[in-house]
């Protein structure tokens, strides 16, 4: 049972690089990498909101629940 982060899929769909997305969202590339690799233990609503805004998607497009 886990939460998968499909951020790289959405980034590929929107053709945006990690560095650019990190800058637009206002987080460090290191933190974006933590998020992409699934090492993150939590995500702030403000970060999720900024990611959804920049990638023009819904939270469910980024996060996925897996049994």
């Amino acid at each position, binding site marked *: 049972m886990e939460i998968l982060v499909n951020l790289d899929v959405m980034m590929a769909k929107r053709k945006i690089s990690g560095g650019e997305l990190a800058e637009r969202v206002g987080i460090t590339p290191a933190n974006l990498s*933590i*998020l992409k690799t699934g*090492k*993150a*233990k*939590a*995500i702030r609503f403000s*970060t999720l909101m900024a990611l959804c805004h920049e990638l023009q998607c819904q939270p469910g497009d980024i996060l996925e629940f897996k049994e």
Partner: protein
Amino acid sequence: MGLNWNKDKSVVLSQVCIAVFALCLLALDIGAYRLASWFVQLRLHDWRLGALLMVSIYSGSVLAWLCLYRLWKLLGNVRRGELFVPENVRCMRVVSWCCALAAGICALSALYYPPFLFVAVAAGFMALIVRIVKNAFEQAIAMKDELDLTV
């Protein structure tokens, strides 16, 4: 305050205290034989009690040196701003075990010199306090890890 006291100076003061304790311990190690001789004179010239006192002093001294070394290391980490790191927990665990073992040695020593029982109780209580602080640090490290991995 006129002395312009700050957190860093407080750590330095703690390190100075450790150095003073280390000097006292060194003096005890050097003067243990003399202390034992005096103790033998006091206790009706029973040389076995002197030997037992020497064993108690030197076994306790090993633990005290280890304890002081770990405290010195812990303060060094605190001075560098590395507070919630696993190494500090290890230091506190060692200090706690040293106090517990010292309490055990003192409890055994109380068999030939009852006042050692007070030292045993004090050392045991100290072991308990350090252990509880160590448990709190472990929890704080887990919380810090979670916070560090919150994006």
